[in-house]
């Protein structure tokens, strides 16, 4: 009975805290600029192709395969959670065992995935820490992001191992004919582990089984909440991010209707009953809330894999810009300012903004080539953030690099980014002739 009470309290409070965290993050994201999105069916198709189908990850087949194992492992092994929760609340043992052979098959399937997830996680740890793949060691991969990654992988290994230990000790107890451990059959992986368990005393086996059971469920409940502070939030948010990602061709930049209205009024002053923009309209993005909400969703969906940065021409040639850093900085800024925004609204002022994290040098190194957007396995758009911040610098602060200001004035005065006269536009047509007579 005590166990049931402890379990129920742990379970309910973990779920409550998890919901509290998610609702806060939801409100952070909603504090950004609104944006209406259309194209539901296409978006749904994307969920299947990109999120579930891993279409972008499979461009590297080995990594795609390993990630698919962890992804499907997560979904399939977590079905076992239903039984664990039921047993925990009602004090039963293996409440799904009535499924008979189906139960043996199901549990064996869970075990195969659990084992595969352990292997995949070990490979992932090795890629990060032994092979030291460069994108895992860039400048923005400071102690915390690297520790976060290690915690996640080690936790996954431990959670999967605990399932195998729990089942293996259970089978050993079944073999000893213990009353509380009725024979439900041998499962595939834990069955193979029997030689390690068969010689143990009954008391040790019961301890091991109980320990593994509690370790797994408490581990899962803690991990679930840890995730909301970690890059691993990606396991929930990626789906939403893929769903809400840009449908237009990547080349398209978002329009600024306020500026459009102003320029229309300027070019055609008579035209206007259109009201000038409200005084507090900010052009471009100075802080996170000036961005559109899908950009913030993107920041919370990022698992810091660094494919964007590895493909970024500016980064490849040693410039300060790293698209992953832009996305990580955005999330940091939202998390640090979120509490104040929820309390005081957008007008709050902590003397900080996105520019406390991101330098002008980074923003002006971007070639807008869209390699980062193309690479992102879950369709995060770092470029949109960079461009909105550039807009703020130019429209609100007039602080573009000198040569760009010169380019602006050329366009304004000559209609071309260079200092040439419009009259010379047709010079190229002079003395044009075919090499030989056309028939």
């Amino acid at each position, binding site marked *: 009975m005590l166990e049931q009470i402890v379990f129920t309290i742990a379970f309910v409070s973990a779920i409550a805290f998890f919901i509290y965290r998610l609702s806060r993050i939801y409100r952070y994201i909603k504090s950004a600029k609104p944006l209406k999105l259309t194209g539901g069916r296409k978006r749904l198709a994307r969920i299947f192709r990109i999120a579930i189908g891993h279409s972008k990850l499979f461009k590297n087949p080995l990594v795609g395969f390993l990630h698919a194992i962890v992804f499907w492992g997560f979904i399939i092994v977590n079905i076992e959670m239903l039984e664990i929760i039921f047993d925990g609340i009602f004090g039963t043992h293996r409440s799904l065992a009535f499924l008979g052979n189906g139960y043996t098959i199901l549990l064996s399937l869970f075990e195969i995935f659990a084992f595969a997830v352990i292997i995949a996680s070990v490979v992932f740890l090795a890629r990060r820490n032994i092979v030291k793949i460069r994108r895992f060691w860039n400048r923005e991969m400071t102690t915390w992001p690297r520790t976060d990654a290690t915690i996640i992988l080690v936790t996954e290994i431990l959670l999967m191992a605990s399932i195998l230990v729990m089942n293996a000790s259970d089978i050993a107890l079944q073999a000893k004919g213990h009353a509380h451990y009725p024979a439900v059959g041998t499962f595939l992986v834990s069955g193979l582990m029997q030689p390690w368990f068969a010689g143990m005393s009954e008391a040790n086996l019961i301890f091991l089984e109980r320990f593994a059971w509690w370790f797994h469920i408490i581990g899962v409940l803690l991990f679930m909440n840890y995730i909301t502070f970690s890059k691993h939030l990606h396991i929930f948010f990626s789906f939403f991010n893929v769903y809400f990602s840009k449908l*237009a*061709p*990547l*080349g*398209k930049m978002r*329009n600024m209707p306020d*500026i459009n209205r*102003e*320029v*229309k009024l*300027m070019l055609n002053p008579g035209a206007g009953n259109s009201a000038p923009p409200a005084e507090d309209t900010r*052009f*471009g993005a100075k802080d996170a809330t000036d961005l559109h909400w899908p950009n913030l969703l993107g920041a919370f969906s990022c698992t810091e894999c660094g494919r964007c940065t590895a*493909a970024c*021409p*500016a980064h*490849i*040639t*040693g*410039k300060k810009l790293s698209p992953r850093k832009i996305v990580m900085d955005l999330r940091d800024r939202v998390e640090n300012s979120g509490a104040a925004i929820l309390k005081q609204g957008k007008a709050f002022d902590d003397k900080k903004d996105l520019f406390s994290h991101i330098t002008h*040098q980074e923003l002006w*190194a*971007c*070639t*807008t080539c*869209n*390699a980062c957007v*193309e690479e992102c396995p879950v369709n995060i758009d770092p470029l949109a953030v960079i461009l909105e911040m*550039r*807009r*703020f610098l*130019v*429209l609100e602060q007039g602080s*573009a690099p000198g*040569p*760009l200001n*010169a*380019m*602006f004035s050329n*366009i*304004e005065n000559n*209609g*071309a*980014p*260079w200092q*040439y006269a*419009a009259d*010379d*536009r*047709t*010079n*190229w*047509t002079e*003395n*044009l*002739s*075919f*090499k*030989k*007579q056309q028939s």
Partner: protein
Amino acid sequence: MNNPSLKVPVMADLAAREKSPEYLFWVGCAGAYDDRYKKVTRAFTKILLHLQTDFAILGKEERCTGDPARRAGNEMLFQMMALTNIELLNAYRVKKIITICPHCFNIFKNEYPELGGNYEVIHHTQFLRQMLDQGKIKMDKNTTVDALITYHDPCYLGRGNQEYDSAREVLKKMGTPVTEMKRSREKALCCGAGGGQMFKEAEEGDKEVFMERTEEALQTRANIIASSCPFCMAMLTDGIKYKDKEESVKNQDIAELLANYLEL
């Protein structure tokens, strides 16, 4: 052989005679002013004239689309250029635009519509491919170009608009062996000029982007680096020069290669 000088039709002249051509050929600022890219403009124009395409240019009335301004954050200037251009294009009742610049292509196709400018927009590589597919350009010669070609994908055609094949198809039709760079198609490395970089010094780093890309192109041992964007061309041509490869490696536009092939 002295050939008669060709006349390039201009929109205003046609409009004065109440004619509106099927296509507007949007030359773009680089196509009009950049000495190297003017050769591409001329080559493509010769193909248009050879095909007796019903087209005209805006000539002295053409203005920057506003693309470099927009990418560099100056939305105000972009909107001024865009709205002015749209007014002109709509006054001429333009329906189809051919551009020889992926940046102009992208902005007409994706960004002008919500400002009131709706056109069918065709990049010149797409146009050339169409003409080949429709048999309007005869490729009946047995001569093949004696060269190995590699093609550099411009970002605003490739990733920006999913157009990877037209240029490659044109090259294929010419029967020239084509080799791919390590990073190509959606993985292609930018030339380094986009997003306003063309008009400024690179930010501090270890290397110029165009050198990185040129080195990659040179690794293929191709002797022609084909491109289809004025900014890529400026970058790659510089890269070849800095690598001291001007003698053995040329950077040419798809339109130039085809015009040469057709001996125009």
